[in-house]
């Protein structure tokens, strides 16, 4: 095919400590297939488990490259970046796709210097046009959209969750598993992880990956129960404004906005959220925006598809109860 890259397309296989793939990886594999031949990159000499290999086959991965870091700490982003720089040079890779998490953006910055790659982060799509990788992204707090072409032979694109609909291939592949030893530069290990606490996984979907996010702001006055119940009936995640996290009403990791998590779910519902520009920067790219706020002058109403002027403590429970009723009626 003409609009396929000649070199392999690497996809970083982000996984949880228990060895399961993070959900957005399936989106990257789906996108990666449109660009060229997909290599899944697994960090850690032990390689992926059988279930993961089967999933990779189902998503059309041709090769799984297993990187042996020789005991170096895979939680250090310079270690990851140098391992990827090594591998991409050895394979003549044309592109690397990774999820746009905070740590992966650190990886991308170092990789750009180490391998001379052009880098696009927080992208919402990637494709090949005239042999070059072109990535789309929204900028300036979701008010502008841009398309960027990467001018270098090796392109690094970090994609936001929900960039593509994961689609398995019609007939699964049997990925070849290839082990690679990695040599790391001395300065990759200068920093050490003294402590690390994995966040406990709740039953709700992860904020950055959820299709539905219900957000509580100062207007909740610390009572998130109405927000949580609506999120649960919608199968969504719970987010917050910086005011709510600063007040300690909910963990800092729930913060959405310019200095928190950037989200682009199908549905965003903000309750008691004014829509300050710092917050909008992290959610304005959402598909449908609903706002419930008692002040008709709140700026969030300027960007809401459905704005409800009202008290969140009456509107949300009423909606939750009605949705439960509808669901029960559907069986």
């Amino acid at each position: 095919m003409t609009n396929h890259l000649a070199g392999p397309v690497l996809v970083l296989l982000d996984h949880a400590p228990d060895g399961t793939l993070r959900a957005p990886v399936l989106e990257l594999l789906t996108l990666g297939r449109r660009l060229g031949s997909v290599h899944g990159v697994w960090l850690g000499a032990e390689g992926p488990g059988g279930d993961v290999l089967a999933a990779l086959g189902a998503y059309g991965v041709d090769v799984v490259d297993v990187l042996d870091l020789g005991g170096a700490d895979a939680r250090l982003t310079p270690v990851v970046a140098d391992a990827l720089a090594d591998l991409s040079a050895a394979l003549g890779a044309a592109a690397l796709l990774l999820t746009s998490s905070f740590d992966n953006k650190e990886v991308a910055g170092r990789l750009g210097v180490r391998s001379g790659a052009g880098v696009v982060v927080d992208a919402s799509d990637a494709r090949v046009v005239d042999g070059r990788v072109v990535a789309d992204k929204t900028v300036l707090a979701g008010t502008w959209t841009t398309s960027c072409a990467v001018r270098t032979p090796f392109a690094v694109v970090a994609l936001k969750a929900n960039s593509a609909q994961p689609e398995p291939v019609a007939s699964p592949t049997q990925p070849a598993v290839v082990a690679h030893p990695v040599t790391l530069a001395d300065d990759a290990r200068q920093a050490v992880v003294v402590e690390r606490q994995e966040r406990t996984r709740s039953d709700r979907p992860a904020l950055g990956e959820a299709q539905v996010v219900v957000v509580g702001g100062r207007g909740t006055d610390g009572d998130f129960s109405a927000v949580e119940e609506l999120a649960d009936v919608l199968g969504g995640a719970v987010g917050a404004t910086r005011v709510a996290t600063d007040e300690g009403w909910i963990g800092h990791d729930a913060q959405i906005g310019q200095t928190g998590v950037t989200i682009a779910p199908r549905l965003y519902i903000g309750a008691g959220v004014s829509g300050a520009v710092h917050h909008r920067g992290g959610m304005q790219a959402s598909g449908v925006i609903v706002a419930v706020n008692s002040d008709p002058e709140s700026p969030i109403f300027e960007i809401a598809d459905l704005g409800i002027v009202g008290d969140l403590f009456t509107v949300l429970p009423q909606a939750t109860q009605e949705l439960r009723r509808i669901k029960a009626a559907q069986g």
Partner: protein
Amino acid sequence: MRIVVCVKHVPDIQSERSLQADGRMVRDGGDGTLNELDENAVEAALALVEEHGGEVVAVTVGPDDAVDAARRALQMGAEQAVHVLDDAIAGSDVFGTATVLAAVVRRLGDQESVDLVVTGMAGLDGLTSLLPSALATELGLPLLALAAEVRVEDGAVRVRRELDHATEVLEAPLPALVSVTDQANEPRYPNFKGIMAARKKPVDVLTLADLGIEPQSVGAAGARTEVLEAAARPPREDRVLVTDDGEAGLRLAAYLVENKLV
């Protein structure tokens, strides 16, 4: 301790910001400010110097009015500033900017050793967060990014940071590069004394030639990505605003069902 803090002049995020056809930010609105997140970087640097002694040097790269960002850092308490000013820098991507900043840090280090480089977590214009990691790599320094808390003790720097899936404490020997989040501190406001003192503080203006950098390696010519298209997002259509009459919750549920969001 000698600390270099990198500061950027950006369009005020409260203002109407826009892009040119080539994807570059329109920067002539006259309402530029010091990137808010860099105030946290300056504050972190000043607090460390107050605790351990030493001085803070602010560095900025950009056109004429970028010096305002450096001036603000001087007003807050930095001792001196460097402004890299060269037409060839226009249109630089993050790697071009990192090349220039790295050259400045090396030059400052030749005069007197640099113990720490501090940056904000992101520029509120491009918001890529790539610069700290690119700059640390250029300088061969350990990277401790996204610090919500920074401490220096016994020749080592220790930061606490929140990642997507975990909370981490990282440590590295000095010299090192730290980027701070807005959780790290509450930036001080320059007082009258600080504003007066800043007028007498030196701002060293450097060109690419002073830094030994080839003009074509940075700027739009050296950029590794190119914007093909930039468009203002169309306003949302069919927006509805309703006032709760006692049934808005039902209306919300119906809206979600109609739009297949349930």
